[in-house]
């Protein structure tokens, strides 16, 4: 079957595939010892997704010039607080940025 795959750079593609496997576990790893962490990972992933979407939306509006100085100030403060809170929570549950993602199978990665 190998003749069905053609590339002049097998190493680069293997490395790319391996990188993705490291980042994305097939399943959420939850067992009695780490149930809390497993749940925290799931919840924080969703919170992070929403936070990123909010950030993106805010940037669109800032870029579009539809916000006043005062509003930009408020947006900045909110986003800053959210990011700090997330950092704090990640620290509590010993989670890294790359832990906060889920492989949704055929739909791809959540983030």
């Amino acid at each position, binding site marked *: *079957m190998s003749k069905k795959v053609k590339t*002049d750079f097998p190493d680069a593609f293997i490395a790319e595939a391996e990188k993705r496997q490291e980042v994305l576990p097939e399943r959420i790893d939850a067992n009695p010892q780490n149930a809390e962490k497993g749940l925290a990972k799931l919840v924080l992933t969703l919170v992070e997704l929403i936070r990123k979407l909010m950030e993106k939306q805010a940037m669109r509006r*800032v*870029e579009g010039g539809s916000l006043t100085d005062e509003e*930009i*100030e408020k947006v*900045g403060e909110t986003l800053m607080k959210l990011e700090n809170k997330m950092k704090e929570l990640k620290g509590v549950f010993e989670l890294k940025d790359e832990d906060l993602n889920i492989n949704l199978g055929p739909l791809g*990665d959540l983030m």
Partner: protein
Amino acid sequence: MKIYTYGVIDSNSGIEDSNKGIEGAHVYNIPYRDISIAVSDLDERSQKKASSGYILKHEEVAERLMESFTVLPMRFFTIFKDKEAILSMMSEYYDSFNENLNRLRGKLEFGLKVIWSGNTIKKRIAENNTGQGQNEFLSNGSQAKNYVMQKLKKYKLDQQFKEEGHKYISIVNRFFSGFAVEEKLNILKSEGLLLTASYLVEKAKQDDFKQAFERLKKSGPNDLKYLFSGPWPPYNFINLTKSEFKKA
């Protein structure tokens, strides 16, 4: 005894397949109306975790079937508890299976992955952006405002990065789109993986399609790395919906 499934085919007569399937089991088909599903029995006790050997076997069986039939390959490691469960699934999806079999008849799938040096490109964009409109916020901005401006800078960089990616993709895709009936493009799954594409190609045009790849390698952007694969059964082009419940 559970039943391992390989794919739905557009014939209900018995398949003659002397080659073996997963765990060396005999491959046969279970008919439902005018179609059928290729399967083999799987000993419950021998069920291990899916292995790469199983994947190759699954693919091998699907490809052998493809020589004689139109195949809707099942997702790897799809197992049913008994024949009844299979027949109920077949009845539930019969209309959809038929639609897909008709749409995919005489067609194959090819895959293309493209790696680019995303890192270098990001750096280049960042360098080009330096000095553009930064002073307005650094001198008189509050902490919150500066934070927004920093985020905005990153946001713009990401946008430009994506635009650059789309430019490359449209060049690459131009080589193939004339030969494909359908295409699915997955863009920038990671910073380095610019494109993961699947193309649905008529059997009669598969040589043209392969030649298009050779042309791309010769005259396409020279800073990209390609991986071309196929022909495969049309894994990525099956759209399934359950049949509507019939009124009593």
